[in-house]
């Protein structure tokens, strides 16, 4: 959602990014830092230490009302009734035809449900929720809240030093903490494949918190460029690229987000189509791709079978800084989705050999408690 710079919003950390050497670009209707010292260095720093990301463009929505979990279950395929307090789950807002309107994180937060949705899609999501949820459910768009992510193997030690107790959280668990008297809603989650946290903080307090975090030598600010390469290596889809209204959770290989009870009971938007795809397999499926050679193959490249027929398209692709070679993801006809299947990619008239790769490309290192 690019736009003229006059139309772009400014995030609470705008001046902070510029002071730290951030190169600002239009993204999701805001000016945001694409990089500071360089995408490659920032990417590798996050894998080895701790990276601080400003993701305040994302929408933070708070829902409440009688049976809010049950109401949200009509639009999201995840098990929300069974979600314990202070636990979060990856889910999707679905259209009536089962297409994905957005992907999101949903947390049970006492009487409320707290959803974090994509920045570029948040206004459309709010309109969908308001139109399709019963009037008894109230929706609060928490525009005054900023959102930071601290990601990497040293993130827990860094944040524990500032906010004692956070290291006790396990992956996909969240809670209310305080720092310097200011409330922070912290979840152990992220979009890099690393251990880490996402921190919801009042916009007026975010600069002080960002300063406190980067005062630790283990932390460096990380831009959108490395955020994209990190999530690609982690096999995580990006809405508007790997997911959109024409893809379903089954096509996108996100079946884990449709819990067992929902699969047998249905009762969510698009359930008929999604349950049929679960039984019979979807026509196309999202896969990872290892690309031969060194040249990156990017979004929009064609995927061809052995006979040169178009069988899909690359939806994300680029150089993997951790692996030192090109990787991609895209959709292919389901019979070609098996790991190891040889495929040809076509970009600007040039052909590349590739094979279907298991994802993630770089193993996840989430902090899961023993036995949990």
């Amino acid at each position, binding site marked *: 959602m690019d736009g003229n710079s006059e139309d772009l919003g400014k995030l609470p950390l705008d001046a902070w990014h510029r002071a730290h050497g951030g190169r600002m670009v239009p993204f999701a209707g805001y000016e945001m830092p*694409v990089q500071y010292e360089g*995408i*490659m260095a920032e990417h590798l720093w996050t894998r080895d230490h701790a990276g601080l990301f400003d993701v305040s463009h994302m929408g933070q929505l708070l829902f409440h009302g009688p049976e809010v979990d049950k109401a949200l279950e009509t639009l999201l395929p995840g098990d929300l009734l069974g979600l314990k307090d202070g636990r979060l789950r990856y889910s999707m807002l679905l259209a009536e035809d089962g297409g994905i309107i957005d992907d999101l994180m949903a947390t049970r937060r006492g009487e409320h449900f707290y959803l974090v949705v994509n920045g570029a899609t948040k206004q459309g999501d709010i309109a969908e929720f308001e139109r399709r949820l019963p009037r008894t459910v109230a929706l609060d768009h928490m525009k005054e809240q900023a959102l930071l992510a601290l990601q990497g193997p040293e993130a827990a030690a860094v944040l524990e030093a500032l906010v004692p107790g956070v290291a006790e959280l396990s992956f996909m668990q969240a809670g209310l903490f305080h720092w310097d008297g200011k409330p922070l809603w912290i979840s152990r989650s992220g979009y890099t494949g690393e251990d880490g946290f996402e921190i919801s903080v009042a916009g007026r307090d975010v600069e002080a918190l960002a300063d406190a975090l980067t005062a630790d030598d283990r932390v460096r600010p990380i831009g959108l*460029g490395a955020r994209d390469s990190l999530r690609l290596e982690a096999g995580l889809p990006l809405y508007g690229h790997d997911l959109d209204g024409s893809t379903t959770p089954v096509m996108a290989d996100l079946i884990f987000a449709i819990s067992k009870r929902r699969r047998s009971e249905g009762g969510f938007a698009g359930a008929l189509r999604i349950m049929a795809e679960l039984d019979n397999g979807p026509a196309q499926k999202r896969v990872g791709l290892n690309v031969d050679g*060194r040249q*990156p193959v990017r979004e929009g490249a064609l995927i061809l079978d052995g006979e040169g027929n178009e069988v899909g398209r690359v939806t994300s692709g680029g*150089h993997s800084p951790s692996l030192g070679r090109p990787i991609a993801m895209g959709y292919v006809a389901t019979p070609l989705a098996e790991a190891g299947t040889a495929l040809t990619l076509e970009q600007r008239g040039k052909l590349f050999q590739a094979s279907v790769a298991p994802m993630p490309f770089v193993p996840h290192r989430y902090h899961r408690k023993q036995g949990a």
Partner: protein
Amino acid sequence: MSLYFTKEHEWIRVDGDVATVGISNHAQEALGDIVFAEVPEAGKSLSKGDDAAVVESVKAASDVYAPVGGEVVEGNAALADDPSLINRDPEGEGWFFKLKLADAGELDGLMDEAAYREWIETL
């Protein structure tokens, strides 16, 4: 030996009738981390403005145009194994290709180094 620059942020170092072509420090800074470069092979004939080489950073692919016409006498083989040479030494070891000038008149109107450094300050 004379050094010229284009508004496409390429440099051309002319020694006799051989021109060495690369991208400027300003260009490599704007591109960011370079992960791939493809240069033309010796013997290829290029006209001014032709697609001559490809350079890809982590973020995007860019074409490098032939700033002057001629026959390629050498592509920089070192870039295939180490494209980051372009980031480290863009106006030296990170050169792209050398060509035998077809028409030295095509150099007319290009900027000299001082004019180029002054011009990029205005961007």
